[in-house]
């Protein structure tokens, strides 16, 4: 069965500092990988996703994530964070085989950007 591990439940970081939110998955099949962000009192929004091709994917607001098949990881990074990046971030995996429709979510990482 697929699983997703986000080891860090909370990550405090100062404004303009770099950040990395870790995500590891376990799956014996090809996967699609997603990062969602949840701002306070809102639903989840897609931040970026990996389906195939280039292993480095980017979002419009400066986040990037790299798919590493050998390490089964999909860590999220940003070189310089803003106060507005304070939110909870969820990593999710879905199988890439036909008939797969379930998404497995990690437990989330709460990013708190400090002034």
């Amino acid at each position: 069965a697929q699983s997703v591990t986000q080891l860090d439940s909370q990550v405090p970081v100062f404004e303009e500092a770099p950040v990395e939110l870790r995500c590891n998955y376990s799956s014996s099949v090809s996967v699609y990988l997603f990062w969602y962000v949840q701002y306070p009192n809102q639903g989840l929004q897609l931040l970026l996703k990996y389906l195939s091709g280039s292993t480095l994917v980017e979002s419009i607001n400066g986040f990037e994530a790299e798919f590493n098949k050998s390490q089964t990881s999909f860590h999220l990074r940003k070189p310089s964070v803003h106060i507005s990046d304070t939110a909870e971030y969820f990593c999710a995996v879905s199988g890439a085989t036909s008939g797969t429709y379930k998404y497995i979510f990690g437990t989330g990482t709460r990013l708190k950007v400090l002034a």
Partner: protein
Amino acid sequence: GAGVSQSPSNKVTEKGKDVELRCDPISGHTALYWYRQSLGQGLEFLIYFQGNSAPDKSGLPSDRFSAERTGGSVSTLTIQRTQQEDSAVYLCASRAGRGTSGRNEQFFGPGTRLTVL
């Protein structure tokens, strides 16, 4: 062009009462999911609807939980005889694309925060 909406946004109920949570997916989205979000436990899959196919109810935690989707659009999650451990945020998501591919993103509603006293 509206997104996924859910109602009510907050629900406080007494233990033993029944509650109904509503989800309006994005028009044209054939796939609909319900999740439960508890503090520190991420998103727990509850149920999946795809078009007119039989739903996948494998995530429902007990027979007190049920869901239906009428006309392939609006969905209602019903919890009977609520218990305190049912307190959580219930999220609904819809997804475009026919079939069962997991490549398309899900669009989430803002959730219903359920508190059982």
